[in-house]
């Protein structure tokens, strides 16, 4: 706070500064000061408090999704280990770099606004905007891949019981195989098949556990719409444990886990989708301050909107930094 005040005092003494404060002679207070605030510092700090509080609500909102993620990952770890191979790590990593860079240019832009450097501000905001657009473009490419491969959300997912797309064997990657499995050479494939045969007794231990599910209301209107394939005894881990270095395969999963594979993609689309909407909102806000900044609205005495949009953009960036390892780098 004292920093800000001293900057403002310094700015007032600067002669020839294009952003030098013009005090409205009729009201005797700075032009951006709303009538219910006493001083510009009070107004600036209020806006800042409000923004931080709002960011807390954003965190809590994403927190719900992170919580859903944790619950499903804890209950079905092998599903996540299997399904995450469909995500392209390189694209995800590139996107992470793109977004972090855009956060840097955003922070630089805030500094330019504080120093009254109009051209610097415009340049930084344009670069940030390009970063956001780049991120969304790459995200669109990734989404397109998922769509083409029929690992879309809801009924568009080939692993869903309610899958409604073309037969999975006609898809570009064939049947229930992970992408990485398809990239194997023929030799590797044979080796993996041999491994799998050897591992067979230990990787499918849970299928036979527990009695079959019997619906006591079968044949009545109360009959359960949920038909679990088996009831899991409490306290027994159902986890498929591949040897170190071996990947979880779809065939290794017990049936009830196979039914959960589409959940991974649903969570993926919800998390990245909500994040993507936030990126778009952020780009809209940056465009708004870019237009105002280009007209010279901001200077050492008034840069609150730039600062607040910056905070928002950093939060959106931060959320992605958590999303990337949680979704793409599962091991």
């Amino acid at each position, binding site marked *: 706070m004292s920093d800000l005040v001293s900057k403002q005092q310094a700015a007032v003494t600067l002669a020839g500064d294009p952003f030098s404060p013009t005090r409205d002679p009729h009201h005797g207070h700075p032009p951006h000061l*709303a*009538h*219910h605030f*006493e001083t510009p510092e*009070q107004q600036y*700090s*209020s*806006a800042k*408090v*409000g923004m931080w*509080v*709002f960011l*807390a*609500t*954003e965190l*809590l*909102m*994403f*927190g*719900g*999704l992170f*919580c*859903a993620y944790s*619950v499903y990952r804890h209950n079905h770890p092998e599903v996540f280990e299997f399904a995450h191979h469909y995500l392209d790590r390189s694209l995800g990593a590139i996107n992470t770099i793109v977004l972090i860079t855009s956060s840097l240019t955003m922070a630089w832009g805030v500094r330019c606004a504080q120093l009254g450097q109009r051209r610097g501000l415009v340049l930084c905001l344009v670069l940030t905007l390009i970063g956001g657009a780049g991120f969304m473009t790459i995200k669109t490419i990734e989404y397109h891949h998922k769509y083409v491969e029929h690992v879309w*959300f*809801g*009924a568009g997912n080939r692993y*869903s*019981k*309610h899958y409604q797309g073309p037969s999975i064997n006609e898809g570009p990657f064939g049947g229930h195989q992970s992408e990485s499995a398809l990239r194997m050479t023929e030799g590797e494939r044979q080796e993996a098949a041999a491994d799998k045969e050897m591992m067979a007794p230990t990787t499918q231990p849970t299928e036979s556990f527990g009695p079959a599910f019997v619906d006591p209301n079968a044949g009545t*209107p109360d009959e359960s*719409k*949920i038909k679990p394939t088996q009831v899991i005894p409490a306290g027994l881990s159902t986890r498929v444990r591949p040897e170190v270095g071996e990947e979880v395969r779809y065939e290794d999963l017990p049936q009830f886990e196979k*039914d*959960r594979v*589409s*959940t991974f993609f*649903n*969570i993926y*689309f*919800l998390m990245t989708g*909500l994040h993507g909407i936030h990126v778009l909102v952020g780009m809209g806000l940056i465009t708004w301050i870019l237009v105002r900044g280009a007209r010279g609205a901001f200077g050492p005495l008034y840069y609150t909107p730039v600062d607040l949009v910056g905070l928002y953009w950093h939060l959106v960036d931060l959320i992605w930094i958590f999303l990337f390892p949680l979704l793409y780098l599962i091991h």
Partner: protein
Amino acid sequence: MSAITPPAHGIGLPVEREPSPPRGDNYLTHSRGILSWLFSLDHKRIGIMYLVGVLTAFLIGGIFALLLRTELLTPGPTFNSNKAEAWTFYNHCFTLHGAVMVFLFVIPAIPAVLGNFVLPIMLGAKDVAFPRLNLGSFWCWIGGAIFFTYVLLGGILNASFGWHLPGGYGLDTGWTFYTPYSTGQGPHAHSTDGTIAALLGVFILGFSSILTGVNFIASIHMLRPKGMGWFRMPLMLWALYATSVIQILATPVLAITGLLLLAERVIGVGIFDPAIGGDPVLYQHFFWFYSHPAVYIMILPAMGVISEVISTHSRKHVFGYNFIAYSSIAIALLSFLVWGHHMFVSGQSPLANAIFSLLTFSVAVPSAIKVFNWVSTMYRGDIRFTTAMVCAMCFIVMFTFGGLTGLFLGALSNNIHVTGTYFIVAHFHYVMVGSVLFAFLAGLYHWWPKMFGRMTDLAWGNAGALTLLVGFNLTFMPQFIMGAKGMPRRYATYPVEFQGYHVVSTIGAYVMAIGLFTIAFNLLHALLKGEKAPANPWGANTLEWHCPSPPPHDNFPVEPVAGDPYDLKSWQWDEATKQWVLDEQRARTVAGTEPTVHHH
């Protein structure tokens, strides 16, 4: 006039002596026309608009409460001889009653109406920190409210009269939207199309709540006047601050829950619906992570009102100020740790049940601290039986009933037996109606002279409040008994042996309606024919009583300096002029704000 010491530059004079706006100009007369209200950034006008909206919602919710109580007069169908239609009607009725009362009345009533009106004035400020955001929040509320009510009413009109409103599908899931009822599985699949629209409504209403919370927190942090440190704030502000903390931390979780449910319904994502790979218990966790703290969004501001009213109308400094202030914060924090007590029979682990049970008991500590402090404030006070005070005293008794039965329910062994029965219904009505409604009425009667510059009629007001008290206990006391005997909640039908209780309960509901209409006529009569109110009819010392009634557009021409908010002894009744007069010298000494302090 010591609470408002002239500031250093000497422009400011005490408002009461020399109001700066022209005579007769106040926020009500400041500008004219419906648009000047709908687009007003004035927190007082926004508060009044919320008041109109909230009372309308209360009327709708109340009518459906009477309808569902009437349906329960007999074990069989009461309105309609066709059982299936009668039951559908009943399901829609109790969903509408619950959802409208919770989302449109109890949650916004005190923070949005009374909070908006008094918070900035109590801070000696001209407005909340973000007036435009405040108006946006009101628009979200009114838009969400109309949308939500339309969808729910549409369903009832459709079920009872066959009128098809476009998009008005209705909702029969209960206000909790539990999966799989809300995900379209099972016997409810035919009627759940209203879920999508209703969820959108809740989502929009949630935004309103969040934005109000952001505004109040920033205002309390940044707009406090000279002389008002955190522990010089009126306790209403502590309560609103704690409420806002819950609003901003819990409501986003409801928003994401709603979004997930929408995603489930619209694009078939399976998070909660077991038929497509989801987990319905996860839904309950998410829902109660919001909805339990939401109970404290309702009760905390009510407690703030009670602290103001009890102290003022007992003519005594509030007892245990620090404890009341800290207990608000303690309740806000504990409110996030007890949601699991709604799920004792939903398949939680016994360990989680035990922990949630223990944490639930701990909420009783700060709540009891408040009750003891209010009672101690009244002890040897010079109690005035104004309608506000009568309502506040009703609050204390009803809240004690509601709070203590909450402990019965927090005890695991007992909960297992009465969960899902009328015992629960009675318990939460004692908290949400017996407590919050009485506190809301206490606040309305306390601040009505400030809001509209008119005094209410004492006799009719008290008669209304006492009728309401009798009706309320007639309605809900029998529900404790039948709940303990095993009458399940949410059923349109019941075994004949419960009919006696249901008849008493229904009669009580009608007595409540008589009490509420008496209060409504009393308040309206005051608006039209009430005696003109002075600036400070109660001799209270919080800052809103230092500006005229009704307040001018800008509240205070110059930011006032705050003193001790509960220094009531400095206001003495002057028999000659029939008004409260401030002993400035005494007030200044109590507040420790000698004028010399300000010459810098």
